[in-house]
């Protein structure tokens, strides 16, 4: 796909066009009387999940179908509920990252970063410049890894198989890099209040450069393999349209919001880590259909590659962490910090009572809001479209259920 200049979100704040007014009840199964058109027909209520090949994780979609058409949908979640918010009340501040990793397990760095940032805000810790750059670098590495999972499973939802394994091939390289840096493939616990756990290991620079050089070629391959396919295009164009008002009303964030024509990106509009000094564009589309979300995410991966290069070139010298005490006791107060995770705005709202554990930690799950909008737009589409729509908004159940 060539870079379309119109696909770039305007710099500055986004413009909203009035509020979303719900036309009718958007949730739950709507019971339509049987016997439409004087034929005795009965609607079929089918359970998609929690054990179903196409639900991401353990989502349960209760779909009421009239033949192949969805007339009502309800999302039933909670099959992966571990009470992360409650557990956080019994963790010390520098251990919050472990919980965040287990929330959205495909983009742990971002969650750790949000938890670290909110702690730093309360403690007013000055983070060294190098730590900022490492955070941005690892964040973008993790973003590509997460988007590759989405890309692979989105294709699986559309019925294709090959692209998933090609995506996993590239993700493997990224996980190797993440493992070399943090010591773990998924549960990193790398970003800590005050900076990061350890400096970048020797030789990671060459590894990353080798990866981005080959990924420049592979991303076009991915785009051709799935997006260049005629059948795939006919499956996603005009399917699962989320218009601007709906997207704003249902609190969509991230790529889903930008695909609906609202250009808001936490990285650009409320810069954190080193994003102020990085040069990147925020891709945007206005159609709001599955294809728009696909195009925006593919372009985000290209931008991430650009940012990784810039981070490697501009990596400053210095400390990787500030001097922080072993036990952090922030003063009583409240703070909110948000990062742009691959799924959207991942916010952590922290209430401290001055002790060494948080009084209350609220974790804003972007995928939960994406799930609600899928529930609302699903009625009226075919079962096959419903699956593709749910795949296109990138749901991670670890995050939705917490």
């Amino acid at each position, binding site marked *: 796909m060539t870079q379309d200049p119109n696909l770039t979100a305007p710099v500055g704040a986004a413009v909203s066009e009035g509020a979303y007014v719900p036309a009718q009840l958007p949730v739950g199964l709507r019971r339509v009387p049987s016997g439409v058109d004087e034929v005795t027909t009965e609607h079929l209520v089918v359970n998609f999940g929690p054990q179903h090949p196409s639900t991401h994780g353990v989502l349960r979609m209760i779909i009421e179908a009239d033949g192949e058409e969805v007339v009502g949908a309800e999302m039933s979640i909670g099959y992966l509920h571990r009470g992360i918010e409650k557990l956080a009340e019994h963790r010390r501040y520098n251990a919050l990252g472990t919980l965040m990793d287990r929330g959205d397990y495909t983009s742990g760095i971002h969650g750790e970063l949000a938890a670290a940032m909110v702690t730093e805000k309360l403690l007013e810790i000055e983070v060294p410049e190098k730590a900022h750059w490492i955070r941005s670098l690892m964040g973008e590495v993790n973003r590509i890894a997460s988007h590759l999972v989405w890309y692979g499973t989105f294709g699986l939802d559309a019925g*294709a198989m090959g692209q998933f394994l090609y995506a996993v091939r590239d993700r493997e390289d990224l996980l190797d890099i993440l493992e070399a840096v943090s010591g773990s493939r998924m549960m990193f616990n790398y970003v800590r209040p005050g900076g990061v756990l350890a400096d970048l290991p020797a030789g990671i620079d060459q590894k990353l450069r080798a990866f981005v050089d080959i990924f420049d070629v592979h991303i076009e391959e991915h785009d051709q393999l799935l997006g260049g396919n005629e*059948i795939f295009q*006919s499956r996603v164009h005009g399917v699962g349209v989320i218009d601007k008002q709906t997207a704003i009303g249902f609190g969509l964030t991230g790529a889903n919001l930008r695909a609906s024509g609202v250009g808001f990106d936490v990285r650009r509009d409320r810069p954190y880590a080193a994003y102020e000094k990085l040069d990147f564009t925020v891709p945007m589309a206005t159609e709001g259909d599955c294809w728009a979300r696909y195009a925006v995410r593919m372009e985000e991966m290209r931008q991430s590659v650009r940012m990784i290069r810039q981070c490697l070139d501009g990596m400053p010298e210095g400390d990787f962490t500030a001097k922080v005490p072993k036990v952090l006791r922030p003063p009583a107060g409240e703070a909110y910090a948000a990062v742009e995770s691959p799924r959207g705005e991942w916010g952590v709202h922290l209430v401290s009572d001055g002790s060494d554990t948080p009084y209350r930690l609220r974790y804003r799950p972007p995928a939960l809001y994406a799930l609600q909008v899928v529930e609302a737009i699903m009625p009226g589409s075919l079962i096959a479209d419903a699956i593709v729509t749910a795949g296109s908004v990138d749901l991670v159940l670890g995050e939705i259920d917490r």
Partner: protein
Amino acid sequence: MNPILVACLRVLAGLGLMLLNGVVLIYMLRKVLGHLHVRLGPMNVGWHGTVQTVADVLKLLTKEDPTPRAVDKALYFLAPAVVFIPSLAAYAALPFSKTWAMADLATGLLFTFGIMSLVPLGILMAGWSSANKWSLLGGMRAVGQQIAYEVPLLLSALPVVLMVGSLNLNDIVAAQDKLWFFIPQFPALLLFVVASLVELNQTPFDMSEAESELVAGFSSEYASMKFGLLFLSEFSNLFIMAGLTVTLFFGGWSLPFIPAQIQAGFAPIVFVAKTYLVIFFFMWIRGTFPRVRVDQLQQLGWKVLLPANLAWLLVTGVAVKLVEAVAR
């Protein structure tokens, strides 16, 4: 020799061929898909996993065979047989060489299509009797698509019949000794391959067992060898359709530029090799393409394939008449 004994031996040979084919094709599918997907496929049982399928067949044979409580017992047990028998019977007319065929039927092509069109009946039985919503949806989809595509499939084979003037598959092969029909009949070949992919429930038209939508479609509730029969008949249908493609468009068991006497010795090998090449092509499509949607499938069938088929049939008919007139 006793003609009944000969007939029995032929049926046994067909059954053996079908079972062997199933085992080989499952291995081939795994390996082809594996390598298309940058992985290796089975590697551990035997050299490069060659015995893996045998192990799997043994597993299927010895597995517990649970019957869900709510199923319609008669239909549930009958369905695998109804799916399996047509795909076995369809081997009857396939010409492996001039003399090697279970039955040399005057209407071989018609027989094969006719017997293959019984398969959706079994699939609907399986889907309906399983008392499972996914199975029901899968069975309905299978019937919808297979009945819709019977017409384009038959129509896409008709131009070849027009050129040959016979429905006997051996005659069709013999008519291709100078020119394989895929050159003059290239549009018909394309239409035939698309329609046969639908008939076979192959990706991108595998609606009836779309695993991302319907779990496993009509075969969700089947286990053990009942599932094995459904699975086996799918591969045997694949072989038959590929064999028909070879017979109609790629000269069957014949090879160009080689005298007929030399060919006769290894004609069955040529036929099977060609068929496997076509199967490889089908698997290639399976490893690459996403699935089309139900309504798109019907639109493609009725709005694109059917008019295109009729138009090409008209063109062929006119051409055949013109050639006859010129020759006279």
